[in-house]
């Protein structure tokens, strides 16, 4: 990627080579300024909840019998899905918006490396509807019952303006795929894991952005001072224009654009976290500490939730084994019983024949005995 500096001093950034597409759901989902709803949930959530309420009017019997694709409209996020994609503007307006988006991309985004997450998402990721369908498919793969439970738990995604809802649902899908929850406690733990992971991602990005901003601000200061000294610019307008141009270049460089990086390094030496950046960072040190605390707390919660979920699943598995063993025992007991029964029947037959045999022999014996007794009696009579 090449760049050039025009004679008037303006830095010309080349056109990005990535596939362009009007994006940034951020622009379409701004929150209104009115006070929050009574329970503190935002309007997007309210829209989602409305859609969900409409969908949950149907009975559970129908839901349990319905296939996965039939349950798609029941998803509250369908309402969310429509937000970024609904063409609320006329054709000219949409075209103008597209052109504006391209212009912004041209000015501020020289490569894919410095494209922020939402734009990157818009360039690369699948549409939201697809993600939601995947969530439904995955959830319903487990069972329609669990699917409904998952949709109930995940209906208010904690997504900030500028972040992509698709990312959140992608994360949720990955977690569902990984843990495969069964039952309400496991679904709620899964939701906690996903939310904490999302929070960690968000605040890690914030921390990185702050660090980059501090480095960039320090560089811009140095470059502006250097330009000011070299050109002898005194007008405020000239200075601010120069600052804007350097700012774009420096942010691209700090975000990883190699061309911009080499350009900046030509002027100020090696880019990195130096004393100037540290000085700028001190201005936002409270935010850094806050972000660190949030990340640490979320990490602890997430790990604890994963542990707890593992224990629950293990207990469930053990229960299944115990139940299987019981069944096996019962089955074998039944077999044994039938065996015993058959044995008893056999014994009964045998005992009857044996008894019969035994009676005969005893009769014979008795007769023999009788004869003996008779002979003894005859012997005694003869003696008398």
């Amino acid at each position, binding site marked *: 990627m090449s760049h050039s500096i025009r004679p008037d001093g303006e830095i010309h950034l080349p056109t990005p080579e990535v596939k362009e597409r009007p994006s*940034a759901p951020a622009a379409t989902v*701004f*929150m209104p*300024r009115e006070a*929050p709803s009574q*329970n*503190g*949930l*935002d309007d997007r*959530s309210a829209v989602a*909840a409305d859609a*969900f*309420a409409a969908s*949950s009017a149907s009975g*559970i019997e129908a839901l349990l019998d319905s296939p996965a694709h039939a349950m798609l409209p029941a998803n509250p996020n369908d309402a969310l899905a429509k937000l970024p994609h609904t063409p609320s503007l006329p054709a000219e307006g949409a075209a103008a918006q597209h052109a504006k988006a391209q212009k912004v991309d041209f000015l*501020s985004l020289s490569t894919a490396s*410095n*494209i*922020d*997450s*939402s*734009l990157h998402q818009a360039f690369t990721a699948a549409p939201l509807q697809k993600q939601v369908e995947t969530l439904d498919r995955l959830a319903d793969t487990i069972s329609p*019952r669990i699917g*409904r*439970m998952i949709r*109930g*738990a995940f209906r*208010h995604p*904690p*997504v*900030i*303006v*500028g*972040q992509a809802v698709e990312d959140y649902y992608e994360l949720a899908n990955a977690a569902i795929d990984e843990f495969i929850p069964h*039952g*309400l*406690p496991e679904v*709620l*733990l899964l*939701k*906690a894991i996903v939310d904490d992971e999302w929070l960690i991602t*968000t605040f890690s*990005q*914030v921390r*990185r*952005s*702050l660090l980059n*901003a501090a480095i960039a601000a320090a560089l811009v200061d140095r470059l502006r001072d250097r330009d000011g000294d070299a050109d002898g610019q005194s007008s405020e307008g000239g200075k601010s224009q120069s600052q*804007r141009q350097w*700012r*774009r270049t420096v*942010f691209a460089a700090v*975000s990883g654009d190699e061309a911009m990086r080499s350009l900046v390094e030509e002027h100020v030496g090696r880019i990195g976290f130096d004393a100037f950046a540290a000085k700028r960072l001190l201005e936002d040190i*409270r*935010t850094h500490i*806050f972000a660190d605390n*949030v990340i640490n*707390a979320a990490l602890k919660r997430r790990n*604890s939730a994963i542990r*707890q979920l593992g224990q629950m699943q293990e207990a469930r598995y053990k229960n299944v084994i115990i139940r299987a063993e019981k069944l096996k025992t019962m089955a074998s007991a039944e077999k044994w019983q039938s065996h015993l029964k058959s044995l008893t029947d056999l014994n009964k037959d045998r005992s009857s024949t044996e008894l019969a045999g035994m009676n005969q022999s005893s009769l014979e014996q008795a007769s023999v005995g009788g004869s003996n007794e008779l002979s003894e009696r005859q012997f005694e009579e003869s003696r008398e």
Partner: protein
Amino acid sequence: MTSDAKIRANRRNALRSSGPRTAEGKARSRQNARKHGLSVPLGTDDPEVRELTEVYAQTELGGSGRDMIRSTAKAQCEVVRVQQTRVNIINRQIERMTDDGDQAITSGERIAKAIVAIVPDLEALGRYERRAQSRLRRKLPKLHEE
């Protein structure tokens, strides 16, 4: 130091204005001290709680009692409420910055700048979040045992 005349004038004026009189004004002034409403626990008759209870009660096949499911749904709604309050605060700040002609280049930078401006508000939410999370966590083993 306020002069005696000024104090007397203030008291006279205060007598003339004794606060809102209409129902609408009273309803509005009732919310003057409200910041985010998170210190007030959600009631079981809250629509969100009721709805979620219905969903969970219909889908939970274990022997969990209705009360247990309701209290779990309530605990989860409280967690969601704190999350959404945080999101709302950040979103409103981003909107304010955009209106003020903010020149942030990326959305990540914009979010970071918004958070820098509202760190005290976000820190204040931490207490409510911890409380809501621990309430929910306490419910889960019981629910699992049932």
